[in-house]
């Protein structure tokens, strides 16, 4: 039984590791289609990772151990985060180990290390990127917590497993408070994953970068880990979103057939979310940097409104 539990956990982690680049490729391909371009294909991120892994990394002379350690730390935290979210099944040994608040903390840990490593070299772009990443992060995090508290109030627990079990048991009920939380969650996801309209993942203009500016000095396998980690992060964010707002189809039992259906359903959710992300990124232009606090302030406000609605009216 225990062995089965950990096998399921291991399979989910492997699934995330293997599929995260595909999700990134899918989003890019959808963006290309929406812009009337042919696109590079779904497998392009795998080719890029392979290319980076083969390349000899170049580490600046001034770099400290922190600089070299950070890609591993960031990658590991993302893998840990992927283990904590009940995406396929609620019977995960590690999912119970941490609740939603800890999950938010895991993401902050990665952000702090990325920012420290960027400042480690003392280059203009690194510290600029670190400053901007922290600006986005410290505004996005409270909004994320507020979003998580609404389903926590509904289900009476901050544990994602309990939330999923409760929400799925309620059946298809439309909670207005959850609608507010869902919109806020989409906004936070865009900001946290360095997507348009907050950051432009495709830009080559170093002065406009947020996430990319943190990684300018990385190359080879270090860059591969960071890129892979970023893909996993997006994957996990969609996983959390699916667990909170579309928990139906996450396996409650332990049968193989149930698991297979859960995997298929989750893949469908991913594809839909990826396509939706591509639409958002096509329709919106990039915000002026100092509009980002307003954007995230709006997300926070929406999340608080959802929370209030639940708390005061019980919707």
């Amino acid at each position, binding site marked *: 039984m225990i062995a089965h539990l950990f096998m399921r956990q291991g399979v989910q982690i492997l699934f995330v590791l293997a599929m995260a680049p595909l999700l990134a490729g899918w989003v890019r391909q959808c963006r290309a289609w929406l*812009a*009337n371009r042919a696109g590079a294909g779904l497998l392009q991120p795998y080719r890029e990772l392979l290319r980076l892994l083969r390349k000899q990394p170049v580490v600046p002379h001034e770099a400290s151990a922190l600089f070299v350690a950070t890609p591993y730390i960031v990658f590991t935290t993302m893998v840990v985060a992927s283990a904590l979210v009940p995406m396929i099944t609620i019977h995960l040994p590690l999912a119970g180990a941490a609740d939603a608040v800890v999950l938010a903390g895991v993401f902050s840990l990665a952000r702090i290390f990325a920012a420290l490593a960027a400042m480690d070299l003392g280059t203009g772009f690194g510290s600029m990127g670190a*400053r901007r990443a922290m600006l986005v992060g410290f505004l996005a995090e409270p909004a994320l917590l507020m979003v998580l508290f609404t389903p926590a109030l509904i289900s009476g627990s901050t544990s994602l497993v309990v939330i999923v079990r409760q929400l799925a048991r309620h059946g298809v009920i439309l909670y207005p408070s959850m609608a507010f939380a869902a919109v806020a969650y989409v906004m936070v996801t865009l900001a946290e994953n360095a997507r348009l309209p907050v950051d432009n993942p495709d830009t080559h*203009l170093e002065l406009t970068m947020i996430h990319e500016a943190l990684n300018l000095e990385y190359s080879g396998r270090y860059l591969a880990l960071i890129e892979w980690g970023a893909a996993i992060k997006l994957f996990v964010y969609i996983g959390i979103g699916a667990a909170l707002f579309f928990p139906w189809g996450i396996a409650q039992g332990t049968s193989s057939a149930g698991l297979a259906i859960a995997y298929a359903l989750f893949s469908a959710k991913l594809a839909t979310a990826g396509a939706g992300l591509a639409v958002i*990124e096509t329709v*919106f*232009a990039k*915000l*002026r940097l100092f509009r980002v606090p307003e954007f995230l302030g709006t997300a926070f406000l929406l999340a608080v409104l959802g929370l209030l609605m639940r708390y005061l009216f019980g919707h």
Partner: protein
Amino acid sequence: MPCDDLHPDTAWARLPGPLPAAHAWVDGKSWRALAARWRTEDGQLAALWGSDERPAGIGFVVHAIVICGGAWRWMSLAAGHDDPRFPALSELFPEAARQERALFDLLGISCDVGDTRPWLRHEAWGSTDFPLRRDFAEGAPKVGPADPSYPFIPVRGSGVHEIAVGPIHAGTIEPGHFRFSVVGDEILRLEERLGYTHKGVAKRLEGLPLAEGGRLAGRICADSTAAYAGAYAMAVEAVSACTVPPRALWLRALLWERERIANHLGDIGALCQDGGLAFGHTQFGLLKERWLQTHRQLFGHRYLMDMIIPGGVAGDLDLAAVALLDGECTTLLQATRSLQNIIDDHAGLQERFLGTGRLDETQARALGAAGLIARASGIGRDLRVFSPSPPYDTLKARIATRAEGDVAARVAIRFDEIYESLRLIRAILAALPDGPARVPCGPPCGVLGLGAVEGWRGPVLAAVTRAPGLGSHHVHMHDPSWQNWPLLERVVLGELVPDFPLINKSFNLAYSGHDL
């Protein structure tokens, strides 16, 4: 008429060619006095450069061209033999400052006041070697790596720090160094450092016969090749007393307008991309690509290189080609209009464009803005209207101006100019004169020749000076980016660092075109 009552001590000689231009030799006193008067009459310094005329016994010569009320005034000043000096014009015309610095870098002619830091000089030449001097040995040994001690002007204060960008960038773009002094993400000061693309073009042009230099002149700045080749051809025709057939003049205008449209399409697409709207980038990229493919099909080169030659135009159009070009105008007009509606209605993109990088008219006038940038700040300067050479005198081009001077205005000007150029192209195609498209251009006989074309960035100039007996000549090609680069430093003050690429793209100035 202002600017026409000339300085009494100065003998003005009308220059050959279609431009209403006159030339005079002046002394140091009238050099300053004339410049001062033109400044008060809203004259614009079109170009300032020098030449080494020591073989002719005149020593070093400094030339300046000022456009004043539609009249072109070219004055030349003998600056001496051993320690050439001249009175600076940068106090009157701020846009002269960098050209004065380049004068010293290339020829060792110094002026009495102003910034003495190098501009085009990156330690590639010894401190006493000046590459444009006639006795400069080509292939002289390179001297050391670039000097890291270039004195940027520092900004001090609590929380101020510098961001150094370039000359090598994260994307595939031209080399330029930008030194920002910032507090947080707000720009307190920007200083440009260019001159990384020096190829010795001016030196090479001296070594080529005038009739053959056109190929090289058309390669100074590839996105303006028709304008450069056109200006060069006009200048050479002026010193060769060559009369270009009307059909060639009309075909040249056709090429210039097509070049303008191609660049404006590309720029609007790039501005959409920098604003984060990839859709616009792809759509305008597609329109530009089709436009360039027509160039390739009808003129043999995507960017129209080597089409305009001294004496006329290298190719000609048959009736089928005329019909094809006319039809293409209709298609492009519809496509551009519908895309403009999308862009104008896109709140997010307009939020980025509106009010960003504002250059008001007062500043633009004081600093001598040229071309498209001036027109976006409400200054209606366009050679096609103020010095209209055929066929623009009959086509009656309309100037597009906007008063706002922000990125949005520079986008709007580009749209307006696309529509106007499409109208001009159709008018040209409808009334294209018959006859030959080129005539043989005789050997050069004159001393001075001036050519000017309103390229898509602004006026592109070519000035030829010849020493007839000695067979030596100098060609100066001038890009409007000389005037507009310093404006970029001005408009970003108080803006956000991440908005700089957008503002820079809305200017889209030449790195290579002003570094010869």
